[in-house]
């Protein structure tokens, strides 16, 4: 059993599509917002997979891991902002 970049990309594609499905399917705003971290998780796995299996020899090899870190932080900030905005709208 082994892992290649193709299998990593399959997992990433599944998570990105699942996040898009959640964002489109859910009626409640906060529930639809949870699709965003799922899509970011898929993108982060793709970046980390590229850094692990196909990093460019000339450039910095860990730039995919850096993108994965930044995506996780952006996901947290987006959820915090969305939950706060939804709470404000519902209190009116």
């Amino acid at each position: 059993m082994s892992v290649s970049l193709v299998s990593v990309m399959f997992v990433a594609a599944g998570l990105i599509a699942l996040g898009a499905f959640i964002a489109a399917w859910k009626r409640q705003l906060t529930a639809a917002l949870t699709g965003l971290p799922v899509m970011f998780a898929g993108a982060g796995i793709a970046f980390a997979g590229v850094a692990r299996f196909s990093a460019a020899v000339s450039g910095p090899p860990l730039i995919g891991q850096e993108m994965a870190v930044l995506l996780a932080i952006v996901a947290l900030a987006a959820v915090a902002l969305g939950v706060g905005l939804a709470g404000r709208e519902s209190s009116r």
Partner: protein
Amino acid sequence: MDSLHAIGFYVSAALAAIGGLGLAFVRHHERRGLALGLLGLGLAGAYASLSAGFAALIALLCYAGCALLIARPDYRTVEQAVSTVWRQLGAVAAAVLFAALAYAAYRGDFVHATFYGGVFGSNSLARLMFAHDALATEAVAGFVLVALIGAAFAWRRERPRDHTEGRP
């Protein structure tokens, strides 16, 4: 990559998929928070098996924060005014997106390179984030700051009138 890492990657990917499916189909927000935590756990495991230990740690912390935000007791939400037809079209578009991405991954001719980084890689990542790509890191830090300030303003509640009325 040896078999142990491969098993770890597939198990973690399955955990992340179960968490994502839970987010899609579970009704109560506490369970959605649990599903988001499960997704973060699977994501961290996948990162760790891809030799991205530092990214795994950060992802675990950030997704735990997301899960706590979703599962908090004073959860409020807004009902969107989107018709069923548009929701079904969105679901079909998500399926088409998956098919396109999976086809691109299957047909792609990827370069294979030998990985020579460490398991955790925090030193190299710190050098990359704060020296080579400092502008991108500062941009994300600015976005996080703006988002947290916006969230703090949005969370502010008006003071109930009976607290202010009746005072001299």
